[in-house]
């Protein structure tokens, strides 16, 4: 049962990710990206990470992909069908990627993980909140500053003078 769910989600994620990088129409790529993010959210839900599943949908689908679609719409004369979407190096890129994946598989097979018997699913919201406010309070503050800087930076860059 769990394995079947995993394979379905994995198929959704990988097929939509392939569409994201290969479709000619960039708007369709963005829509496929949404499908991929939704599949990943489903994967999180199956990994006892319900809070992160919701955050994934909220941030990625609700904010990042919408921003991307906006950028596509603003620049859409250029992403029409006549314009080339790829450079001339798909073959070298493919070779590099395949060797990268082989490297992953080799290193994965050589690593033994100490898998802990996982306990039944419990609400994670409280645990994440406590972790963010105690052990990881410094990264938490740093990341909020990064977010603020990015926000101001984006406004400054995109502003019409």
């Amino acid at each position, binding site marked *: 049962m769990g394995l079947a769910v995993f394979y379905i989600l994995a198929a959704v994620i990988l097929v939509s990710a392939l569409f994201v990088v290969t479709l000619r129409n960039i*708007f*369709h790529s963005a*829509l496929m990206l*949404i499908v991929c993010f939704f599949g990943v959210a489903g994967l999180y839900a199956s990994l006892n990470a*319900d*809070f992160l*599943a*919701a*955050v994934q*949908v*909220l941030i990625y*689908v*609700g*904010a990042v*992909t*919408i921003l991307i*679609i*906006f950028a596509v*719409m603003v620049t859409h004369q250029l992403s029409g069908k006549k314009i080339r979407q790829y450079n001339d190096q798909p073959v070298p890129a493919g070779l590099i990627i395949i060797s990268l994946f082989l490297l992953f598989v080799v290193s994965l097979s050589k690593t033994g993980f100490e898998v802990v018997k996982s306990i039944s699913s419990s*609400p994670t*919201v409280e645990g994440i909140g406590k972790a963010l406010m105690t052990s990881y309070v410094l990264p938490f503050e740093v990341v909020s500053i990064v977010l603020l800087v990015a926000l101001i930076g984006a406004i400054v860059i995109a502003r019409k003078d």
Partner: protein
Amino acid sequence: MFELGGIFEAIGKWLNGFLPPVWVTIISAVITGLAVLGFLSLLALFLVWWERKISAHMQQRYGPMRTGWHGVLQTIADGVKLLQKEDLMPKDADRIVYFWAPIICFGAAFMAYLVVPFGKGIIVQDLNIGILYIIAITTFTVVSLLMAGWASNNKWALLGGMRSAAQIISYEVPLSLAIVGAVMLAQTLSMNGIVSAQAGGFWHWYVFREPLGFLVYYIAATAEANRTPFDIPEAEQELVAGFNIEYSGMKFAMFFLAEFVNMFTVSAIAVTLFFGGWQPLFSFLGFIPSWVWFMGKSLVSVFVLMWFRWTYPRIRVDQLMNFAWKFLLPLAFLNIILVGFGIVVFK
């Protein structure tokens, strides 16, 4: 006596008597799905009629009067008319995207009802991230509007889609931050948990603990539901009809129904977070079934939304953005700080 929660439990028990558990799960999922779908369709039919009557009476007219008693069957007649219409598609439309946009729009509106507590024990699935789930799943509405705007291959549709996406995203920020206040008070994200935390009379409702949060939520929710004074996306007089200009027949009906369902969704969330959900006004009024309280409060909230529409003029698109970012957002932050202080001081 008239609590519906018991009926669902009884059906579950009856099915468990002679069926394996997997089948019970599947059958109950199908039954609840169909029940919610049927409820929402009836509700949308009713709300469309109600809005027409309210608008008419506010303008000293009668509104629909011919079909049925005071025109109650008017929406059904309209629906039949829409079903019979030819399903047009623009010549250069992006066919697949054009087809899926209304389905995703309605699906997103429908999926939110997974966690809405209609009454004591009447909730499809009480997820422990309940309210976060609603915020997350309703973002698909924005995606569907952008899809519709893009796929129609029409500049009015594209403009309407982009405007509505910008508006909904902008107002989602103060909306989510206003919800944080209620979550802080209840110390849970689960919808049932938030309702239970407000038990024991109307002075325990969160609208009295954080009126500022309610104000921010309600204004932002009006914008989320694309209602006047924030109905820029549809702005009949400027954009013809916005993102749905090229849609006709059944697909248009789905957008239209989704709009009214969304209006009820934001009202139901407002009632759950700030008005005690299905909790009675006083505890001695508990003999009235909980779902009556919930529906009553929600319909009052829907009425107020309709009242807004026929009272205020539409605001300009630049004023809209300024209002969200420069006024509502600081107020939402102020509300969080005040609630935090309140929790520390009064506990």
